[in-house]
């Protein structure tokens, strides 16, 4: 053909099934490479129409199945001398028409398979490729592998934003597609961007810094081989090349996990001795929690009176000089707060007054009870002392991934982690001091965290807030779930880009999928790994693409190679944690000191303070902290030199 395209069919229109401006039918030869999702072009002298095949029909001139049965004398093996002509008729939805005006029904004309250039035009990618394209996968038709790009202005803002992916567990490629698109964003996005991943189940996101297959000479090559880890195939490598995305694991991944209740062992599956050093504790103190009390306190508890008291504590008590029962206070942590509450209540009881600074005794008692319980309820996440370890607010790095492992946290703790981190992200983005201009928040199991029905929660409200207002700030939500129909409509509705992996037929039967043809639904129900259907503002119709397996170690494979370590005894865990800042720390010295102190709370506090202060001589500082509290300090103990912690030095960095 003159246009260099391969003709595969002809448009047909009948009175019963006419062409419209948005759909048309065409038949093809028996051996044509057309299937559901194939992109085609109708070319006439006046117009070019790009379409995507959404339905297929095959039929003969047989009027009734009975006629075939009678003709074969009921013998299924009978071979009639003539085979009835069989037509393959396809319905296509219009993606684009050139020229766009006047918009008329698709004309009768030859139908061609789309090539690379036609794919780009069909999907209107010519408007943004070279300016803001993000490779998302490859449109495949036979031997043709044409790159498909998303527009970053519609994926990461400001025009539109957010990505939602849905599909059944295990086969839907939800995690891997998000991993790949993050790799792609890192490779192609022209502005700075970082990612916060909430690992909400298992170990999905815990090995992003390891390759899917071990290169030759790799440190863990033998372990990969011993565990029969699947490698990146040459087909995958070809796809990476076509998409111009480096086939590499993420270079800058930072892991965070709260402690277990013992406050020395991290509550994560990434506890293999080779890896635990790269996981930083996520630990918040009173200051961090006071702003989010509504999240962690029962909604019924925080009535107007309780809220007023909490406000009072925030404004007049926390980190301020105050007085209660004649005692001076400067509340800095939960322990101090307990003491303060005790003093207030004692003062009221002594003076026989039912109110203290307009706050009623019962309200004070209730807030005391709820607040001081927090460090017990969220032990491991909320620190009773001043120790805090948090995400690097203000110094997020471009192309950095910050994985927050909350998989082992109870629901309310997860709520707190999500809400606080997202609120802090928003706060910093508003002020422009996060360190990057764009942040992507990755959340799986969205139907659990933002269900379409059920009680209102702060987390759901937070997610709604991101989806509705985040794009203006550069705060983008990449969310995933099994059942899109069970997610809050405004969240999925605000996701400009939606991806669908293999779907459950029950889910496809829900009203949200009514716009899809039966064939498209059937295809969705049988998609294999690495295949997705994508909706994007530039694409008039959903498009099927394939993407390569991300070059990242899958969670289950990571667990095989790096099995989690057993929970360590306190003295061992303390030595291991202190070793982060001093690799030559004597194990026996730490052990002896812990044994000598006989106060686990105190040694943990001392450990955390030591890690936080990062002194030149950690053992000496640690000993001093323990002894100071336990009144074991000798007067002639030499002073400990503290590094300038405000200089932006992260004590966990480089461990």
């Amino acid at each position, binding site marked *: 053909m003159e246009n260099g395209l391969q003709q595969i069919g002809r448009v047909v229109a009948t009175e019963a099934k006419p062409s419209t401006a948005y759909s048309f039918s065409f038949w093809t030869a028996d051996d044509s490479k057309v299937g559901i999702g194939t992109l085609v072009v109708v070319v006439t002298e006046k117009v070019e129409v790009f379409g995507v095949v959404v339905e297929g029909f095959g039929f003969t001139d047989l*009027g009734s199945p009975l006629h*075939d049965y009678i003709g074969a004398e009921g013998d299924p093996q009978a071979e*009639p001398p*003539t085979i009835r*002509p069989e037509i393959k008729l396809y319905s296509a939805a219009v993606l684009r028409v050139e020229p766009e005006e006047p918009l008329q029904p698709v004309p009768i004309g030859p139908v061609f398979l789309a090539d690379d250039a036609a794919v780009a035009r069909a999907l209107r990618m010519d408007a943004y490729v070279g300016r803001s394209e993000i490779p998302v996968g490859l449109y495949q038709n036979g031997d043709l592998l044409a790159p498909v790009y998303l527009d970053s202005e519609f994926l990461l803002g400001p025009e539109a934003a957010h990505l939602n992916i849905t599909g059944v567990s295990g086969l839907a490629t939800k995690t891997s597609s998000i991993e790949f698109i993050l790799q792609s964003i890192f490779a192609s996005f022209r502005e700075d961007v970082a990612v916060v991943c909430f690992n909400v189940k298992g170990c999905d996101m815990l090995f992003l810094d390891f390759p899917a297959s071990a290169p030759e000479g790799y440190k863990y090559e033998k372990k990969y081989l011993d565990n029969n880890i699947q490698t990146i195939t040459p087909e995958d490598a070809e796809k990476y090349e076509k998409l111009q995305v480096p086939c590499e694991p993420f270079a800058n991944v930072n892991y965070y996990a709260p402690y277990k209740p013992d406050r020395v062992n991290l509550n994560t599956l990434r506890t293999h001795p080779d890896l635990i050093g790269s996981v930083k504790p996520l630990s918040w103190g009173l200051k961090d929690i006071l702003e989010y009390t509504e999240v962690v306190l029962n909604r019924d508890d925080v009535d107007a009176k309780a809220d007023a008291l909490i406000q009072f504590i925030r404004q007049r008590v926390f980190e301020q000089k105050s007085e209660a029962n004649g005692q001076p206070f400067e509340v800095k942590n939960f322990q101090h707060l307990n003491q303060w509450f005790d003093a207030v209540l004692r003062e009221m009881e002594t003076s026989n007054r039912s109110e203290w600074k307009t706050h009623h005794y019962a309200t004070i008692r209730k807030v005391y009870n709820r607040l001081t319980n927090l460090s017990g309820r969220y032990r491991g996440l909320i620190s009773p002392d001043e120790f805090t370890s948090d995400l690097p607010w203000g110094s997020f790095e471009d192309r950095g991934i910050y994985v927050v492992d909350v998989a082992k946290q109870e629901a309310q703790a997860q709520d707190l982690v999500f809400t606080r981190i997202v609120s802090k992200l928003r706060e910093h983005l508003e002020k422009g001091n996060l360190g990057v201009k764009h942040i992507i928040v990755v959340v799986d199991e969205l139907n659990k965290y933002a269900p379409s029905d059920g009680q209102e929660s702060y987390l759901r409200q937070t997610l709604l807030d991101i989806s509705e207002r985040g794009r203006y700030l550069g705060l983008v939500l990449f969310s995933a779930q099994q059942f899109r129909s069970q997610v809050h409509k405004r969240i999925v509705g605000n996701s400009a880009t939606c991806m669908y992996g293999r779907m459950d037929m029950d889910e496809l039967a829900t009203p949200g999928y009514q716009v899809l043809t039966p064939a498209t639904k059937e295809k969705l129900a049988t998609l294999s790994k690495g295949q997705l259907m994508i909706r994007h503002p530039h694409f008039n119709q959903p498009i099927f693409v394939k993407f390569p397996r991300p070059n990242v170690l899958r969670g289950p494979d990571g667990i095989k190679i790096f099995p989690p370590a057993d929970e360590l005894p306190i003295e061992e865990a303390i030595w291991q944690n202190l070793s982060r800042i001093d690799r030559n720390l004597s194990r026996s010295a730490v052990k002896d000191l812990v044994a000598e102190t006989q106060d686990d709370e105190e040694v943990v506090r001392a450990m955390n303070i030591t890690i936080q202060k990062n002194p030149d001589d950690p053992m000496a500082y640690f000993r001093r902290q323990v002894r100071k509290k336990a009144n074991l300090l000798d007067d002639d103990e030499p002073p400990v030199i503290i590094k300038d912690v405000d200089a932006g030095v992260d004590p966990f960095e480089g461990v």
Partner: protein
Amino acid sequence: MSDLLGNLEAYIRTLPAVDVRVTLSHSPLADETPMRAESEVIPGGRELAEECGIMAIDVGGACKGEFCCFMDGMQRPRGPIYVNSPVPILYGYVAAAIRVRGSDRRMRTLPGFHKVDESLYFSVGMAERYGLTISGVKIVDTSDSDTIEHPIALAQVAYDKISTIRGALESELAAKWVDQNKGPGWLLVDGSLQSDYGEANVVGVTKSHGTQYLTWDEQRVVLSMKVGERSGAFIPLVHGRRRPVYSWYLRMHPSEGKDPYFGLIRVEAPRSARALAMIDDISRWILAERAPLSLPDSRWDKMIYPIRDCELYMKSLAPSHTSLDARLFRLSEISRSREG
């Protein structure tokens, strides 16, 4: 396909005074207007070709045969149109095609074996008497000194002529096929064999039984034949003349409880000793063509599937009933618009 009706319209528009009347079809999907030969029983005769006479003979069941090509013809008459005269003008589209069955058992048109003709059929002499000299379109003159000068009779002559032209197209194709094919494959023709094909591998299958070749008693034998049975062969006589074929009846489908002609066809093969010896084989080959059924065609009991395929092929390329009727309607509007 030519724009014959368009050209006719252009011609009519050149006439200074116009009175155009058109008979639009009442049943727009009907192609075949019943011809006299099909609506009336024509007496014929027969000369027995086998010693057994006209008796029911079991041919021994279906057997995959040597049929590789199939021929059918079609005609799509429209009208009559009257232009400034009571002389009926018929539009006629005729076609004939031979389709070949490949080793994949699929049907394709044999290259060069699809012929079409589109003409106006009327008595030129009579039209000229009314001052009508149509030019710029293909015309078939149906003038016949025996015809009564009556519009209905003239229209019937034109209809008959359309059938004749279709037959001529079929004969032309069949002759060409015979000329080019000397191999083992056979051509099955829908209808009677129009020529003497000598030793050629050609068979005709007739679905209509309007000509009475057999005696009443022989007809009773034929009509009571069971499925898979044939009659004894005979040489058909028309107007006392021996046709150059051997013919026999064959029951394709059981007719018990149905019309006695249900599933009954008449087969013709060239009048050669070779064909006479092959009558049972040819019958078995035809029986094998019963599958697939030609349903939903109403003639499925007598029509083999490849013939239906030929018919569908030709119809798919013929001008549609709707477009023809629309063209004729435009003609009828010419005089009205002039008056306006």
